């Protein structure tokens, strides 16, 4: 309703008039407005802390094998979440696994974003044959079941976390390209973009200073969702035996191997699975929340 937003806009003016809060404070008041940002943010923050401070947080050496202590139950012999099939401490492995899984999620999404955003911007802004070509490429990639393409790429590139990241990055960019393109197409008709042209801005300036910042909200949303998708995709690749090279280990790898023991030592698959689920949940909540907030802040309708 036109009425309500008008009120909100004016409300903000009044609030601002009273005192000019600092950027940090603005940020926090911004966050505290959304439960999903708050919860998602906290989850993601915890995971990131786990990854950064893995050596401090972990209770054991995640690589040390103790064959005599194989498959211990959680809490047994001081192992918080038990041990895996080599007698390695599962908790520590999950803490260290955060590094790899986050790396897979974030770097591959960054790569997809890089490709997708640039192609989407170009296709959306210039249109015409350039758009046709880019969209045909998108169609081509989309026609593959994504996982299949990832499998083929990993097979071609060879195993290893870097290659998994590259493969996932090369597979998942189409979504970003489509979303960015759609946004650019509507944005470029907006008056402020036309205004930028009337003041003589060149295409580069318009694309990167005017259009791109205004596509950020959807990019953040699909990007955070993408991180979750990438983490799960990596787990699936691990399940199919592609990907990580030991002794490195992601959650997906731990989970895929834990599946072999699901009947006798379910904790081996449950905890890494939970780690994945919680992380994906965190990123999704964060993304959703950020979208809701930016939408209500900057848009009128």
């Amino acid at each position: 309703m036109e009425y309500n937003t008008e009120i909100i806009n004016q409300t903000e003016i009044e609030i601002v008039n009273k005192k000019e809060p600092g950027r940090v404070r603005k940020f926090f008041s911004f966050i505290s407005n959304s439960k999903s940002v708050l919860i998602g943010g906290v989850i993601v923050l915890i995971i990131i802390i786990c990854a950064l401070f893995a050596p401090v947080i972990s209770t054991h050496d995640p690589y040390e094998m103790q064959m005599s202590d194989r498959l211990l139950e959680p809490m047994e012999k001081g192992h918080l979440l038990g041990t895996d099939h080599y007698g390695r401490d599962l908790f520590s492995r999950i803490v260290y696994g955060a590094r790899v899984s986050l790396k897979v999620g974030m770097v591959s999404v960054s790569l997809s974003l890089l490709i997708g955003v640039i192609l989407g911007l170009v296709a959306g802004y210039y249109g015409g044959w350039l758009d046709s070509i880019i969209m045909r490429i998108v169609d081509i990639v989309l026609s593959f079941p994504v996982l299949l393409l990832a499998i083929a790429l990993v097979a071609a590139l060879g195993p290893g976390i870097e290659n998994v990241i590259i493969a996932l990055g090369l597979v998942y960019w189409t979504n970003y390209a489509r979303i960015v393109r759609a946004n650019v197409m509507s944005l470029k008709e907006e008056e402020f973009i036309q205004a930028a042209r009337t003041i003589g801005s060149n295409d580069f300036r318009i694309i990167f200073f005017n259009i791109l910042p205004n596509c950020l909200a959807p990019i953040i949303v699909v990007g955070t969702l993408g991180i979750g998708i990438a983490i799960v995709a990596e787990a699936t690749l691990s399940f199919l035996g592609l990907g990580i090279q030991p002794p490195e280990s992601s959650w997906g790898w731990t989970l895929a191997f834990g599946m072999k023991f699901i009947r006798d030592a379910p904790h081996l698959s449950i905890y890494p699975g939970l780690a994945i689920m919680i992380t994906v949940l965190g990123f999704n909540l964060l993304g959703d929340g950020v979208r809701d907030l930016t939408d209500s802040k900057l848009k009128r309708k």
Partner: protein
Amino acid sequence: MLMKEEKLIKQPLLEVNNLKKHFPITKGIFSKEVGAVKAVDGLSFTINKGETLGIVGESGCGKSTAARMIIRLIESSEGSIRLEGQEISEINGKKLRAIRKDIQMVFQDPFASLNPRWTVRRTLLEPMKVYGIGKQRDREEKVYDLLNKVGLDESYAYRHPHEFSGGQRQRIGIARALVLNPKLIIADEPVSALDISVQSQVINLLQDLQEEYDLTYLFITHDLSVVEHIADRVAVMYLGKIVELADKEKLFNNPLHPYTEALISAAPEVETENKKERIILSGDVPSPANPPKGCPFHTRCPKAMDICKEETPKFKETFEGQYTACHLY
């Protein structure tokens, strides 16, 4: 050519001649062109320096398209646009950039025309950055100067568009148009999105600025009372064509074209006493994709004659300084 113009005291700033914009209509698997939407169909007018030309018309009559062609946001299909005698409809690259400085635009929707993620300061600095004008300090000075000029507090410089009310946003939009010291400002429905009390504030501002900077306005609106207030001359558009062009007084006191007449009469007035008899046109504006043969207005014209259905009336000077395209004259 110049000789003729020099006789007049007024110097033409912008001359538009037979300007057209046709959007193709395609059909079939291979996108064959089967017709065209004639959004603007042969527009000719001149704006003199320091003058305000108002263009009035209902939505879809092509007034905004015309404005965007003049400022080169969209390419014209045909016709010439000359700014101070220089043809600008086909220049590109550096030359175009140089010309762009001279023509600026104020948009209809003050919210949509401001980048929501930029602060006011950034919005106003941008044109100078683009053209590399001045040093950072000069630029900032200019920004604050302009803010003062359009009646905004300097402290607003770091705020984002959503923190302003509609009127304030439009002031920012006006300030942006002024940054590059343009010769011509095209104002496309600059006040139609604003509340009445704010509307008058902005109109006043535009008039003040015109005086101060010796600006020339091309003022596009659908609101007759606004155009009556601000314009020197008024062009009335209907279906991509100008049907009447005259000095304001002549146009409002003695409208020649039946459409102009209807338009003026249709506007509701506050006067409660001696209400005039209104002319209520029947039907809708025809689609520009399929304009009627002959005079485009004949389908709704209360004075339509047989000839109107057959022949397109010529746009001619009916009385001195009053041009009309109507078979009645």
